[in-house]
């Protein structure tokens, strides 16, 4: 049966939260799902808070509105925790996934009494160690797949290897780093 998984992304303009949501849509599409990936456009400025959304389902999606009661929330920048109500409407049966070097126990007090699962991933360290630069997208994507279980991990990994090879055909040096970043993120999520 087609349970719809709804995901809301919080990031800052320029960090790639929108791109990450589109990558997740792509990955889910490649495993045969119906998907939606869409950003909430505003007056976009580097560093300003932005929101993006995903719906993932086994059945065709018809709804066209933003997501107010997500199953999962992904926070790409932990400085947003004090300025944006990231857990608004978040289902307690779901989880929040925060990019931070801190532990879930350290993050929970910032979440206004959210009782559901709190997961953290140190996307910065993973990114710098595998890619040599701070690109949080790939590790965040791995963390979302891990926590949400929205698609088969093995299938996801295989598919991503294929799309990295395609996407970075002209930059083969980053293919290996991205694959490593994904593999590590699938293992290093805390709070599961």
């Amino acid at each position, binding site marked *: 049966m087609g349970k719809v998984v709804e995901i809301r992304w919080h990031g800052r303009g320029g960090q790639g939260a929108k791109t990450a949501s589109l990558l997740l849509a792509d990955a889910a*599409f490649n495993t045969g799902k119906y*998907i939606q990936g869409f*950003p909430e*456009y505003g007056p976009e400025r580097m560093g300003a808070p932005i929101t993006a959304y995903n719906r993932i389902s086994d059945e*065709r999606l018809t*709804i*066209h*509105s933003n997501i107010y009661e997500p199953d999962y929330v992904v926070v790409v920048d932990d400085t947003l925790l004090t300025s944006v109500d990231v857990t608004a409407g978040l289902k307690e049966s779901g989880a929040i996934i925060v990019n931070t070097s801190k532990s879930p126990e350290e993050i929970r007090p910032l979440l206004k009494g959210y009782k559901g699962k709190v997961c953290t991933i140190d996307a910065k360290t993973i990114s710098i160690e595998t890619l040599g630069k701070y690109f949080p997208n790939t590790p965040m994507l791995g963390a979302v797949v891990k926590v949400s279980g929205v698609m088969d991990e093995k299938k996801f990994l295989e598919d991503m290897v294929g799309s990295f090879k395609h996407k970075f055909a002209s930059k083969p040096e980053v293919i290996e780093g991205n694959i490593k970043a994904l593999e590590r993120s699938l293992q290093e999520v805390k709070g599961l």
Partner: protein
Amino acid sequence: MAIRERLSGNEATAIAMKQINPDVVAAFPITPSTEVPQYFASFVADGSVDTEFVAVESEHSAMSACIGAQAAGGRAMTATSANGLALMWELLYIAASSRLPIVMATINRALSGPINIHNDHSDAMGARDSGWIQLYSETNQEAYDNMLMAHRIAEHPDVMLPLMVCQDGFITSHAIENIDLLEDDKVKAFVGEYNPEHYLLNKENPIAVGPLDLQPYYFEHKKQQAEAMKNAKKVILDVSEEFYKLTGRKYGLFEEYKTDDADAVIVLINSTAGTAKYVADQYRAQGKKVGVIKIRVYRPFPVDEIAQALSKFKAVAVLDKADSFNAAGGPLFTDITSALYAKGIFGPKVINYIYGLGGRDVRTNDIEVVYNKLLEIAETGKLDSVYNYLGVRE
């Protein structure tokens, strides 16, 4: 076999244009339609189309260039939104009255002011009397399919009118969703070649385009234009039937969703129809007899068919994503109530909601408000307010 893909509405539109491979595309960028000419320009640059791309300095020039190219005998296309469409205004009328079947992607956005980049239908609704055929699209798939059918409709000898394919800015234009594409060769065969009977570059049979047309013939020409718009309805249905045979995707003048035994029905246009269908499913599961009618063809307006379809319901809400500022209701409401009156149908109680202006998100609970009101009207037969704003803060 269809090609399973995931694309935004703008990507889908640009790919349809690539498969159509028109002679000329002239465009000026404006959010949220910018990506359409942007993607298309990349197809021109990499040689996957042989279109002449004209990067003009305004939308007024974009439509002027399309008029010139189409009058010369070519196939011309463009894309725009909101104030870009407004800047084309005088040329829209000239394209239609010159009987030039130009095809345009209109990515619906609120017309300034106040300035706003988000979706409503105030741009295209303002152009409803310009003489263009208007097809509306709920999804990226419908935007793509409508575009593939556009030239067959517009260029039909009984029609010869320009046509705009509308979709909701950002909501579908910038959202990635699943889509089934047709193979290039199938599109090519379906769309066919453009062979106008009269065109400027035909030196064997010279003509004038756009000359002064005063009392002796202007009136007759306008009547012919009106007849062409009437003819368009049958052509749209014929082309849609042929498209159905090709793809299995069925399109009519409007879509009726769960309306068979419905008491309460919402009539609306574009992406919010999907949200309404979602709510209708939930209400149906609770045994509430509700349905959705989604207008695909707004110009020509399907007067007879829509009046007939609505005649069996107890309560109908027409949702307009634009206001007419006539102090009485939005454009779709006005057209629908006049269709009912003209056909002598007085059974259904009809109310109007203006909704989602300037991109205000339309949520499932907004649709629930409308259905709850309609079910109350259906039960009591009492109608307290006809012209309403949905979910506005007061």
